[in-house]
């Protein structure tokens, strides 16, 4: 990171209300909805320097900066976004948005359904990646952004970037698809289903309408997160950090926390169950499972990408087994076959799937080089 890189500083979220009904892929219609979002930097006069950041499963609109001077945690991609950082807010107008169905302020299962005055709960419709992209496009309209200089995302966020390039080819100049895949494998879906079963079978889940009961399916959420977390780290990374370290230095011959890895996972699970909504978790994993932009084109990803006009950057990480480099190569292969401009890097990292949030040097260099090019392209 360059020495003059700094934070976007104190930020605040904004809300936008959309009263035009949104038809969803699942067949239902969302009559109205709110999206919560943040922006950093200035939209230039030509409105050519806007970048959309799409979040992954547990992410949200708070991408960079802090809410107050004593806010302990910065936005989830603060190491990538800010003045002098690879996504340079001195040059770009950066938008982070919480997706529909989320639990950080946008309309989702925990929001009040205006029709009934009750939380949506189990009645909130399943939303898909294309639905999110449609909702994001409406937000772009609202912000006066006709064409994104770049749409960027890791993991599930990368899927949105890819979908944008297919659904709105004229509105995306660059799509950055990081640690992602063109569709989930059976193994990916299997992990998601175990996570969902953990939540759904928690008695406190109450069929998704736990809000009215005053309960929270903590056990389910906690297990789902623990499982997820294992798949986000690599075996080597986990070994390096925790190994077989014991908290007390000796075996206790019982079932309490003994190994450091157990302690870590339980802590992560507990923390997560304090703030994340169980229905949102279910919904996000379903959006992952259903993602398959080739499906409408007879399973042909090349055909799906035929009309994309964006330039692409695809990146993967060597130790990522949740979305392995082979999966990114499928995307790259299709992009090449479709004759698209694409660069692909396979970054050496021990951080597993989480590497897209880390600062491995070649990764930061790659992002910096690519976005420098974007900045020149759009005269940012």
């Amino acid at each position, binding site marked *: 990171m360059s020495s003059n890189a700094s934070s976007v500083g104190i930020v605040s979220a904004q809300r936008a209300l959309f009263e035009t009904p949104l038809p969803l892929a699942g067949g239902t219609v969302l009559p109205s909805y709110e999206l919560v979002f943040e922006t950093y930097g200035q939209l230039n006069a030509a409105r050519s320097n806007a970048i959309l950041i799409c979040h992954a499963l547990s992410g949200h609109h708070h991408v960079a900066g802090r809410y107050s001077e004593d806010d302990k945690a910065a936005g989830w991609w603060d190491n990538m976004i800010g003045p002098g950082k690879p996504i340079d807010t001195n040059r770009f107008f950066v938008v982070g948005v919480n997706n529909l169905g989320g639990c950080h302020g946008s309309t989702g299962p925990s929001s009040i359904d205006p029709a009934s005055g009750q939380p949506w709960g189990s009645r909130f419709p399943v939303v898909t990646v294309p639905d999110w992209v449609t909702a994001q496009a409406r937000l772009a309209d609202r912000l006066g952004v006709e064409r994104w200089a770049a749409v960027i995302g890791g993991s599930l966020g990368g899927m949105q970037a890819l979908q944008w390039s297919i659904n709105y080819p004229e509105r995306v100049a660059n799509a950055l698809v990081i640690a992602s895949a063109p569709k989930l494998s059976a193994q990916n879906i299997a992990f998601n289903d175990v996570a969902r079963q953990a939540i759904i079978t928690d008695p406190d889940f109450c069929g998704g309408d736990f809000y009215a009961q005053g309960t929270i399916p903590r056990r389910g959420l906690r297990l789902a997160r623990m499982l997820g977390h294992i798949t986000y780290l690599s075996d080597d990374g986990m070994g390096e950090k925790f190994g077989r370290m014991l908290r007390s230095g000796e075996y206790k011959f019982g079932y309490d926390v003994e190994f450091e890895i157990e302690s870590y996972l339980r802590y992560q699970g507990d923390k997560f169950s304090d703030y994340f909504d169980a229905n949102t978790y279910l919904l996000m994993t379903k959006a992952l499972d259903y993602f398959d932009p080739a499906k409408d084109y007879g399973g042909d990803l090349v055909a799906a990408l035929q009309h994309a006009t964006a330039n692409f950057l695809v990146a993967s990480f060597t130790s990522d087994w949740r979305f392995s480099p082979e999966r990114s190569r499928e995307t790259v292969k299709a992009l*090449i076959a479709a004759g698209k401009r*694409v*660069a*692909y890097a*396979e970054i*050496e990292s021990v951080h597993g799937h989480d590497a897209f949030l880390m600062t491995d040097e*070649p990764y930061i260099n790659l992002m910096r080089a690519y976005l420098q090019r974007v900045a*020149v392209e759009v005269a940012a």
Partner: protein
Amino acid sequence: MSQPVSALRPDLQMIADWVSPGSRVLDLGCGEGDLLAWLQAHKQVSAYGVDFDVNNVVRCVAANVNAIQGDLEAGLAEFADQRFDHVVLSQTIQAMHNTEQILLEMLRVGREAIVTFPNFGYWENRWQILKGRMPVSDDMPYQWYNTPNIHWCMLGDFDELCAKNGLRVVERVVMTGGRRVTFLPNLRGSLAFYRVTRG
């Protein structure tokens, strides 16, 4: 968008001269993307490069060259049949394990292969061998114990490999120090350039 591109190294310029304007080019072992950046700026080619080193991919990205990080030894699975007009392998074939396979892969994905390599038969190399040492030169700057170059050949050897696989040598140029050599090329030429197609 094209950026000013400085003059090419003479051997890369030789390759560039063979590339037809507006064609589709694949550069294997593209390094920092010098050749492709030049071709994009001067011959309006549409091009991809492949390189093993992530730092080279980053430099290609900076130079607006489409670089795909990959290992040539694993073949060219990312690329469909006959996708390119020219497939370039510049001073790399001598460092590959799967020499024959890459040559065939090049002609699977492209119409024409452009292969260049240091000519082991160059008289200075022969002289060093006569003096009892493995050759070290500007074109071959490694010691025997740290060289990545494991498959040395001379002009006749490469001709024979092409013939064995039913490939046709369309054109061959031999150079030394940036100048063409026509008289006794296998003795006087340090770098060999081949244009090869399917028979």
